[in-house]
């Protein structure tokens, strides 16, 4: 970031803090003012038809390949899957250097991120015999993680961070499965790891994908730890504390999507306790009502917490 841009950013932040203006306020105003700018409709139609055109071309190519799949030999199958992915990647790198094609970079990276692993899996399936899915996943996602991180060091794009995260965690899942770790333990560890990674990137300019990863990794952590502690009294009583901790951390992390996942986790854990310890008791209907009041209180508290997140 050059000095002028940095100075402007500092000034904007100073004004925003002085008048209590949030990032959401600025974004909403920019979206609202966009139609009034000159050439907006022209740019809008151009964007819509560009995306539709690209989508149609991509869908047509995929359909064409799938129609003749049985007629292709192994080399051709690898070429028609991995080849376009590699081409899209090269085009993305070239487009990044030219301001005229800046908007094409993300769609090209998306195509590359989808087709490259597909092509590599086809390569493994066509030329190697074996039943080791974990090893195959490691062979595919490991190099792609390195590729995305190297590209990010040059191109500095949020989409690259997202793909790096996606491939990196897929590689780790496969590696941990390969060494014999249980799926629930893997979900818990990678969920926690993913939350930490999301926390870091939420404080960088590459934070556009973080709400999604917060939600997914919070869900993974919650499911993993639940599977490990359920039906293991008295350890399963820790689940309520864990869910409460997640809600607290979501406020610290300033993430609504993390908060939503944490609230769903708390409700799920409460449902588990209700059915596990109170289902056969006469007090079961009372427990349900009390749980309802707890849910109401929790939702009101979550709204209050959400309002604190700027």
């Amino acid at each position, binding site marked *: 970031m050059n000095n002028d841009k940095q100075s402007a950013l500092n000034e904007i932040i100073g004004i925003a803090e002085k008048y209590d203006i949030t990032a959401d306020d600025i974004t909403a105003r920019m979206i609202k003012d966009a139609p009034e700018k000159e050439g907006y409709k022209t740019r809008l139609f151009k964007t819509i038809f560009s995306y539709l055109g690209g989508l149609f071309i991509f869908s047509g190519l995929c359909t064409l390949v799938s129609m003749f799949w049985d007629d292709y030999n192994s080399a051709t199958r690898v070429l028609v899957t991995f080849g376009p992915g590699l081409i899209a990647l090269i085009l993305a790198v070239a487009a990044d250097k030219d301001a005229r094609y800046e908007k094409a970079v993300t769609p090209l990276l998306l195509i590359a991120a989808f087709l490259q692993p597909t092509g590599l899996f086809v390569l493994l399936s066509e030329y190697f015999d074996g039943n080791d899915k974990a090893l195959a996943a490691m062979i595919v996602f490991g190099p792609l993680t390195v590729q995305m991180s190297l590209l990010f060091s040059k191109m500095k794009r949020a989409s690259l961070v997202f793909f790096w995260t996606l491939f990196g965690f897929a590689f780790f899942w496969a590696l941990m499965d390969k060494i014999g770790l249980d*799926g629930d333990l893997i979900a818990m560890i990678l969920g926690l790891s993913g939350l930490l*990674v999301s926390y870091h990137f939420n404080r960088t300019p590459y934070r556009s994908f973080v709400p999604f990863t917060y939600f997914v990794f919070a869900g993974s952590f919650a499911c993993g730890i639940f599977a490990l502690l359920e039906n293991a009294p008295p350890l399963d009583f820790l689940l309520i504390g864990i869910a409460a901790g997640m809600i607290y951390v979501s406020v610290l992390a300033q993430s609504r999507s993390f908060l939503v996942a944490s609230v769903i986790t708390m409700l799920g854990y409460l449902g588990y306790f209700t059915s596990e310890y109170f289902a056969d008791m006469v007090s079961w209907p009372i427990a349900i009502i009390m749980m309802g009041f707890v849910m109401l209180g929790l939702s009101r508290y979550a709204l209050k917490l959400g309002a604190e997140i700027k």
Partner: protein
Amino acid sequence: MKAFLKENFVLVLGISLPLILVIAVIALQSIIRSSVEPPQYGIVFAEPETYYMQPWAFEVKNKKLVITYQEDNRPDHYIDVSVWLQHYDPVSGKMERVRINKPDNYNEGEEVTITVPQHFADLSLSDKNKSPDGYTFSRASHSSSSIFTDIFGYNSRKRDYRLHKNGVSFNLPDRGHKYRYENAVFIGWVEHE
């Protein structure tokens, strides 16, 4: 380096957590594996062609394999007319596989003794659960999927069979994606001459 760590502490922590766990597990597995002698005794087991082992029966009598075939009145789709008889030698890593089929001109309800293929007829077997060096034949107990992945419809339970002793496992060889181990039935350990 210090400045980088300070600035990206949370990111480094997030990436290093699973890495530390992986290294610790691999180190622990290596230490435990080095303390256990690899399996020295071969194993004989059978697998159905599709899913059901009925109406096949495998016994070890006087250290020799006896195979019998007897259909009952269950529907045909619950009967496997072929099974795979297998001998795995963990020392050489070789797997001998022979397919045996339902006898020709079989009369329903009749118990028929099947001729044991020569390779297996020459083996001297013990039908004890544990091999002489303490290994057992069992199915892998862990699953690569979790509740989280089950939500998205991905469910993968391990079908690997292994020789297991004191927390150390030696998986049977990978036979390729077309041949997964299904409902293997333990028959016996191959005794050394």
